[in-house]
């Protein structure tokens, strides 16, 4: 078996993986600090932070020969017999010197810098740097400039790691960014008149290890240590990118991508990134409404639920036909409860998939190992990123539920035709979509086709105006549940915000209507029940999903081929920070 020697200890190397020294050390919990290396970008080794002592062990004689100079760890393959020393005085001294060099012209704006709190310079300067530095010359002051409509560059904070440049060349193939000037005057810039304008532009902000590239949308609004992070899934298209929704004081402030090598790698698109705003929309419904006489007025939650439940039961018992629209914005758990509830009222009820918004065409970014890349690409496994035209998170999930309950999937348009023809007595309509599905005219025709209408939605739509009962439901941020993306991958999203005043999460609304007893429902309990009932969801047995989600209809979830994926950059840092904490706590005097 291939083995590697790290700091005098021998460890086995994972089979069939190409790792560099940083990754190999990370697997066993040894941190090698780095700036310019990123697991999805080519290796250029220009920051020199990761330099360590490297050598090789002769398999026959067991003799160890070290390279006389320090070697960048990001560029060192972890092979059989490789010897790494990451904590010798030579390495530690080198890291101190690199920190001093990087901070020569750095303004140390930390109090006003948006990166403070998740900044590689701050953390490594604390753990690997030194308190003093000897630079007495005048600092280079680079200008602040706009590199995109949404992105600001504070050039003086840049440490020239060129991650952003490599991203636009290697991942998006748009190449908007470049390095201008040389030496200490080197600066990141755009080509004059060509700002960064691609669908993934916002990722350069996440990539930047310091606060040089800043998102203007988030700029100066919050300090990052105030934000609580929740693992979510983006609901703006059917890719289902993994995100962390970061919230403080009941408002979402930003979305950041979360690594999932099977879906979105390290990226999210700008459309998804800024879609958090719809969760903070002040025009979201803040109360439930019911028609009393001719007037639609706000009523107490239980009153609205009771009146909807009673009326639907009455329609069913009188033999009237009920139709339900199950929105592709609902989670699979909600779709399951809704379908179960309506079918429970009357077995001949008709369930239909809500409108599926499609905008434009799928856009795929296909990086390859060669094109647009420079430096060492042997460690790379670049993954394509697709922005789907289908702008809903869960069409496949709802379809799978519908197929189970009625054997076929009826689409929204087919149902509207049947409603207009007067086939149904009552309609249960769910949406939760930020896009409008039924304009005023369509709403009027839907309304006139049925004698009783329940609308479960988050916004005041023309159809809600005409409803008999409006149930204020949760936005994507206010509910937990699972979604099935375009590839059929079932993924779990946490709730980021508590339900707004006057609203209830869809799962609770449906559980109350369906008469489920036993207090508040948990999405995992519903998922477990669903997995037991519907074979397609067998992967979610027990209500648990693996970190990277699981493919519908698959046997037990396949793990990513490269075992546990590399820790995302920021996560690696927070771990370092935890270690620093224990170290300084032990030696310092108080």
């Amino acid at each position, binding site marked *: 078996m291939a083995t590697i020697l790290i700091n005098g200890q021998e460890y086995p190397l994972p089979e069939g993986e190409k790792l560099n020294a940083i990754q190999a050390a990370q697997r066993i919990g040894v941190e090698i600090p780095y700036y310019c290396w990123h697991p999805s970008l080519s290796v250029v080794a220009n920051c020199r932070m990761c330099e360590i002592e490297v050598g090789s062990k002769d398999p026959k004689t067991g003799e160890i020969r070290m390279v006389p100079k320090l070697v960048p760890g990001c560029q060192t393959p972890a092979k059989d017999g490789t010897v790494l020393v990451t904590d010798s005085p030579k390495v530690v001294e080198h890291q101190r010197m690199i920190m001093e060099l990087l901070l020569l012209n750095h303004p140390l704006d930390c*109090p*006003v810098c948006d990166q403070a709190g998740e900044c590689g310079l701050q953390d490594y300067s604390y753990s690997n740097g030194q308190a003093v530095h000897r630079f007495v010359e005048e600092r280079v002051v680079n200008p602040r400039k706009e590199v995109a409509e949404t992105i600001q560059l504070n050039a003086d904070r840049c440490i020239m790691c060129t991650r952003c440049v490599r991203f636009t060349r290697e991942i998006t193939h748009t190449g908007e960014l470049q390095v201008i000037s040389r030496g200490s005057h080197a600066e990141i810039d755009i080509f004059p008149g060509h700002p960064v304008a691609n669908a993934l532009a916002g990722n350069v902000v996440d990539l930047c290890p310091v606060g040089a590239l800043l998102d203007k949308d988030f*700029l*100066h*609004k919050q300090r990052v240590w105030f934000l609580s992070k929740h693992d979510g899934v983006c609901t703006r298209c059917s890719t289902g990118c993994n995100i962390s929704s970061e919230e403080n004081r009941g408002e979402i402030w930003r979305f950041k991508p979360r690594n999932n090598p099977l879906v979105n790698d390290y990226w999210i698109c700008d459309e998804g990134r800024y879609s958090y705003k719809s969760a903070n929309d002040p025009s979201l419904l803040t109360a439930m409404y019911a028609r009393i006489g001719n007037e639609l007025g706000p009523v107490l939650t239980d009153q609205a639920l009771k009146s909807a439940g009673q009326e639907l039961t009455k329609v069913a018992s009188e033999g009237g036909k009920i139709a339900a629209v199950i929105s592709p914005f609902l989670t699979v758990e909600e779709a399951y409860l809704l379908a179960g509830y309506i079918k429970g009222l009357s077995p001949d009820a008709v369930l239909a998939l809500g409108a599926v918004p499609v905008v434009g065409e799928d856009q795929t970014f296909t990086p390859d190992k060669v094109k647009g890349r420079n430096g060492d690409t042997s460690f790379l496994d670049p993954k394509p990123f697709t922005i789907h035209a289908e702008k809903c998170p869960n069409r496949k999930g709802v379809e799978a539920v519908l197929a189970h309950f009625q054997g076929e999937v009826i689409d929204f348009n087919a149902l509207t035709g049947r409603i207009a023809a007067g086939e149904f007595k009552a309609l249960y309509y769910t949406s939760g979509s930020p896009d409008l599905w039924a304009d005023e005219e369509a709403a009027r025709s839907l309304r006139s086709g049925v004698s009783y209408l329940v609308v479960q939605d988050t916004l005041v739509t023309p159809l809600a105006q005409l409803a008999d009962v409006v149930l204020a439901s949760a936005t994507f941020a206010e509910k937990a549940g699972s979604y099935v993306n375009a590839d059929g991958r079932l993924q779990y999203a946490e709730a980021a915000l508590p339900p707004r005043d006057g609203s209830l999460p869809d799962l609770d609304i449906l559980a109350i209507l369906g008469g489920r007893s036993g207090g508040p429902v948990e999405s995992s309990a519903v998922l477990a029940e669903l997995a037991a009932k519907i074979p397609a969801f067998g992967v979610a047995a027990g209500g648990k999903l693996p970190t990277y989600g699981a493919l519908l209809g698959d046997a037990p979830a396949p793990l990513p081929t490269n075992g546990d994926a590399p820790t995302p950059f920021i996560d690696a840092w927070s771990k370092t920070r935890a270690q620093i904490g224990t170290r300084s706590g032990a030696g310092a005097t108080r």
Partner: protein
Amino acid sequence: MRPDDPSLKRMIPPTLKLHEKFYLPQIVGGLLVTGKHILSASLGKGAITVSYPEDQHVPSANYRGVHRLNKDEQGRVKCVACMLCATACPAHCIDIVGATAPESWSDREKYCESFVIDELRCIYCGMCEEACPVEAIELTGLYDLTGLSREQMIFDKTKLLSVFDLTRDAEPMRYTTPPPKAGPRPTEVEPSGLPGPKA
């Protein structure tokens, strides 16, 4: 400072001697001090009460009273909205809204659009003052802090800046201006001009 810095000194707490372990000598010592104070006060010499408000109490120079927000030479608020004070505050009584500074403020990228301290929640610990990297927030010697309603005790940016104008001469900014020459610090303050319902 690094944990392995050779100039770091380890402090070892002194161990208790045998008679200290009994505690009684300490208690008696404490009672003696109390008795001394009672005696000197009742004999009229060391009275420690004043006839407030006719006589004003002058707190010690490190007394921590109501906050002020300092201004720079151009009269702008010094605060850069880093929210370190709000982070450090154990009472969570500081609320700041940051914003990008106007183009004309070439030296500054960020400032506070709104700055509110709930003086009723504050415990006057001075952590905010300690945390501030630009010496923008300071606690003054003003102790006459009253209000007729809770709302009056919630100090906004305007009010906090007005406390600075009020106390500027008596209490110069601690780090950015040279300390005042000899003389007790807070005596010149006109208490009638204090913030609160009287003002």
